[in-house]
């Protein structure tokens, strides 16, 4: 009697066809990502170049502070290259976190007027971060050419670490997005965390600077594992991976992802009422 395209909405039992809906609305996801990208640089003169200026300047400052002033060890590579290898994933994480976190609140109009699986909104913000990442990656290539640095074969493993970064970013982003709907305090917490994280994460320095007994604790921050991985892939050799630390970061990252999505799905049905 019920045809395959019948939909049933029952109190208390939503989202049984969520995965199916996610697939059905895939085009909308692309459109939202496209919109976010377009809007970013509308009416700007410098345009896309801003995606490059930020990491470049950050690299200069960190190199100056940590490399010259404090004279941190660089493991035999030019300090700016070292720093940039850290900036690359960090920037991805920071952009993804900020954009995803704010995404639901920015799209209040959509949420209260149209139906589609809300998970697509923070997912769309990931695309913006990814585009920035790719632009910065191009710059990294230029940097490597400048320093005449040939990367080892492990560079082929870079996408794996990007995947880890995506998982961690999306996990935290989705948590913040869902929490921000009810508690707008996160509007202030997120920029602070990003600012704070830039210094606590091994962006401006090597993670081996952290004393051995704190390494495991330090690796609870999933970005530590990602940055270490990036450095290992690109710079190889001296920057051996700290395997226990990496495991902690990987587990931590995926834990954040799974719990983030769980919390998001649990609160999703009240978004339109609370936002």
């Amino acid at each position, binding site marked *: 009697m019920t045809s395959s395209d019948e939909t049933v*909405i029952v109190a208390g039992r*939503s989202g049984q066809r969520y995965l199916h809906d996610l697939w059905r609305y895939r085009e909308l996801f692309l459109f939202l990502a496209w919109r976010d990208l377009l809007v970013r640089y509308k009416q700007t003169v410098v345009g896309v170049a801003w995606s490059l200026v930020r990491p470049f300047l950050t690299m200069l400052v960190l190199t100056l502070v940590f490399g010259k002033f404090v004279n941190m060890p660089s493991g035999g590579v030019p300090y700016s290259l070292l720093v940039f290898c850290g900036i690359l994933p960090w920037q991805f994480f920071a952009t993804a976190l900020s954009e995803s976190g704010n995404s639901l609140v920015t799209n209040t109009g959509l949420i209260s007027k*149209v139906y589609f699986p809300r998970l697509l909104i923070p997912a769309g913000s990931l695309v913006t971060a990814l585009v920035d990442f790719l632009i910065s990656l191009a710059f990294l290539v230029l940097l490597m050419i400048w320093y005449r640095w040939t990367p080892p074969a492990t560079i082929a493993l870079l996408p794996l670490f990007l995947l880890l970064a995506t998982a961690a970013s999306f996990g935290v982003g989705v948590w913040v997005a869902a929490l921000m709907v009810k508690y707008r305090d996160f509007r202030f917490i997120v920029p602070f965390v990003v600012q704070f994280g830039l210094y606590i994460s091994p962006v401006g320095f090597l993670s081996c600077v952290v004393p051995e007994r704190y390494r495991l604790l330090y690796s609870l921050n999933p970005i530590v594992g990602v940055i270490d991985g990036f450095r290992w892939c690109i710079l190889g050799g001296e920057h051996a991976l700290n395997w226990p630390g990496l495991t902690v970061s990987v587990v931590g990252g995926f834990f954040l992802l799974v719990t983030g999505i769980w919390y998001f799905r649990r609160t999703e049905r009240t978004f339109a009422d609370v936002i």
Partner: protein
Amino acid sequence: MSDTVITVEDLGKQYVIGHQSGGDDGLRHLIEAVAWTPLTWVRSRRAQKTSKVKEEFWALRDVSFSVKQGEAVGIVGRNGAGKSTLLKLLSRITEPTRGRIRYKGRVASLLEVGTGFHPELTGRENIFLNAAILGMKRSDIMRKFDEIVAFSEVERFLDTPVKRYSSGMYVRLAFGVAAHLEPEILVVDEVLAVGDATFQKKCLGRMGNIVEEGRTVLFVSHNMAAISSLCTRALLIDSGRLERSGSPQAVIEEYLSKSRADASLAVSARGDRRGNGRVRFTKVSALNDRHQVVESVTSGQDISICLEYDIRDSETLKNAVVQVKFSGLLGQPLFACLSRTSLREPLALTPGSRLLCSIPHLPLVPGVYTYTVWCTIGGTLEDFVAEAGKLSVAEGDYFGTGNLPPNTIGDFLVAHTWSVGE
């Protein structure tokens, strides 16, 4: 026999609204409470465990109905009755607290004009965005792009950011996209209230096309004319409950009669009259052709409106002009019986008499009408009672042929003849 596409069973939606008594959620209120009156805050916290008073509010309750394929259902009700909540539940934007909804096919909801429009993007980009948000596939959008642009008449400004558009252009563009959706079920919420007259006509026309194509439409509106012309069925929602389901005329009648509070009050008891008061109408009634008081008459019947009045100073008032004006359900004036135009001499009102306005062969289609009466003496208004009486007109053999005229066309029956000739 068309099958049911939407089934709603015992639908209920409850909201919890908080009232501020001792405090409220949110960091700000906490800080304020502590800062301003630290002592009272501490005392109140210790005194009452819960400083928040929460009230349960049912926006919708026990709503059940079903809709068949191809039906155009109008939903009417006062503001705050729960119509938009019903649409939101149907569109899956919010979840029901109780009950269930079952529907077949795709639902496209138009709860707002220009959903997802971004002011920085151009018209062209926004068409794509809005259409995608409303559920159109990219291939469909490309196919219908030109149609949408033609409907919206904004071709010249397609590549300008939408923030530069006038409000009319904005609305035309938004509705242009919406008008070309092709869902099985279309849900529309009062979006036709915007725009100028030409645009509204265009939109209603387009909605009529959609209904003709056999799609199911649910339409919330305060525009009763739109509902009665577009819809095959109507639902009346009042205070969260489904009060009535039936033909648009019947439902609209019930809705309007609810909001017309004074109509049933006797004329003598009416307090909202105007005029100096030398003469006051005390009772109005409709009489049939045998001068008997009746509650309802038929089309084509010879009727009279009887106006009983009181003269304050018990004298004959000369130079009187009296009018009885008939209006339809929506308050639109239909015709007026004005003594100044239909009589050569002005009336003279004598105390203890009553006034009869006789209308031969009543030319009104079946329906419910109200009439307003007023009286002037020597040019000054003495009494004015709006909607003093109600007249129900039933089907009648106006043309004397035995073939009853339909009541869905127009408001009047006009005598005419047919002949075949050169």
